[in-house]
């Protein structure tokens, strides 16, 4: 995997974000302390990305934003992964009425465009990190569950599952030993390909003011501040967009390479 330029680039970009998140405290600036005298400074050695309309160091804010982005990405995809796996297997292997019910629920949730879901939900709950996680889970979980369900149903009729049933193996054993191991791989690929989507949702929601509350630095919020003062200085807007670009591209390249390597359907030799 390391031999492919795209994979290498992906790893590099992701590493940049992860290291940034880890060492965000070492820049010497606070992400939220105001310094009105230093407003709209251009990038320099003291302020790598310049400062925003409140004089805060943008580089520091971007690094702290990485913590939020990665945190949401991993927590929310983790919940979606486990929830999708369990609900999908129940729908695929359980009784038909339950399958119909769950399927209807998944499809109804998928009927909402993600932004609409976010807007409707946050109107009612008010903006918060939990709302962001909830939106991500509601937006991604039904898709995973549907894939898991479809695979479970096709695995259910394979001869090796019939063979286990004919031995008298109970349902939990068939699900745990024969079905789940064949689901995990494809689902991991699917979920890892979705990490950039999750980062986008988080950034998008904070851009709309639906995510974390200020002054907590989130990439979307930085971008929104930059957008508001775009005529004063271009740097805050650039600084807000840059990490989003790096993160989404990095995770996409990584996910693509991962899939090309792990998905047996795409490999030429068997």
């Amino acid at each position: 995997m390391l031999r492919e330029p795209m994979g290498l680039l992906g790893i590099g970009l992701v590493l940049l974000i992860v290291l940034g998140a880890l060492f965000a405290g070492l820049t010497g600036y606070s992400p939220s302390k105001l310094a009105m005298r230093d407003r709209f400074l251009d990038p320099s050695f003291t302020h790598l990305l310049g400062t925003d309309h409140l004089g805060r160091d943008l580089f520091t804010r971007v690094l702290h934003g990485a913590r939020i982005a990665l945190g949401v990405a991993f927590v929310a995809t983790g919940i979606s992964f486990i929830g999708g796996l369990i609900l999908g297997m129940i729908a695929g292997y359980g009784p038909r009425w339950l399958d119909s019910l769950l399927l209807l629920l998944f499809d109804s949730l998928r009927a909402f465009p993600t932004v609409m879901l976010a807007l409707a939900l946050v109107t009612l709950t008010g903006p918060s990190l939990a709302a962001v996680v909830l939106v991500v889970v509601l937006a991604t979980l039904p898709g995973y569950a549907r894939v898991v369900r479809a695979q479970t149903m096709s695995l259910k009729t394979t001869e090796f599952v019939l063979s286990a049933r004919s031995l008298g193996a109970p349902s939990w054993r068939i699900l745990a030993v024969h079905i789940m191991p064949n689901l995990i791989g494809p689902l991991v690929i699917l979920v890892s390909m979705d990490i950039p989507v999750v980062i986008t949702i988080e950034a998008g929601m904070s851009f709309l003011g639906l995510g974390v509350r200020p002054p907590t630095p989130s990439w979307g919020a930085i971008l929104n501040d930059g957008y508001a003062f775009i005529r004063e200085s271009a740097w805050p807007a650039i600084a807000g967009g840059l990490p989003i670009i790096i993160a989404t591209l990095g995770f996409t390249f990584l996910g693509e390479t991962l899939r090309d390597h792990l998905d047996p359907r795409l490999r030429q030799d068997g």
Partner: protein
Amino acid sequence: MLLYALKRLGLALIITAVALILLISMIQLIPGDPAAVLLGPLASPEMREMFRQQMGLDQPALVQIARFFGRVLTGDLGTDVLTNRSVLVTVMEQVPFTLALIFASITWSALIGIPLGCFAALYRGSLADRIVGILSVSSIALPSFVIAIYGLLLFSVKLGWFPTIGAGDRGDPIDQLYHLVLPSLAVGLGWVGYLARMVRASMLEVLSENHVRMARAFGLEERTITYRYALKIAIIPTVVLLGMGVGNMISSAVFAEIVFARPGVGKLIFDAISTRNYPVVMGAVMITTGFYVLCTLIADLIAAGLDPRVRSTL
């Protein structure tokens, strides 16, 4: 086909209904007092009480859901708190702007994306295919609002080539088109990649099928095989995915409208949130969701119509 269409239509109606019910039930499920959230911290207890009565929030949950559902079915989405007009009217005023943006974006991205996908499938493994591949995954990955802001920054603020805000003069189509350029660039760019990848993937799948081998064994020209034999099959799953992708496009359109201060449903909702115009938010969400379900329905029906295996069944 008729049976399939009826089934699919029935399913779309049920899904829309369940989606609506989910939306309405959210008010109940979410902890806290919606009146407090919606009216803001400054509202007096009397105002909140009045609001509750107005919205029917004092009724039992199931009654509320049933009532609301019943009203929605008759086309009554509630009253715009600010203007006292019907929400339906308020939202429908904005729909044409959003539709124009979406269709402009779909058109230009389809014109580039589909041929690009075919090209990549035909020259699979080549350098050009790899470059198209990397560019398309990148364009899918990049959030539309980042593209929108960078585009605004570069082309409007720095270079001054395009207008920054609005949808153009009412009676001036040229001006309107001019105002569409940057927003539809931001909305459509991801779709170019999305389409190219979809077309490429389904073309490759079809080209590896047995009947293509047979067509080759009969000496048919590669051009005939690609356009008459393979594309006709590959287009079927692509159409379905296009329908599903409209959801993404709606999301992108919301951002583009906000960034470019363009009138439209997205901007409407965004503004309604800041003015706590709760019925407008819900009404607009319902209408866009319905529109999205309609798009997937149409896409599925077109795909079914293109497939003789489905078409010939009753």
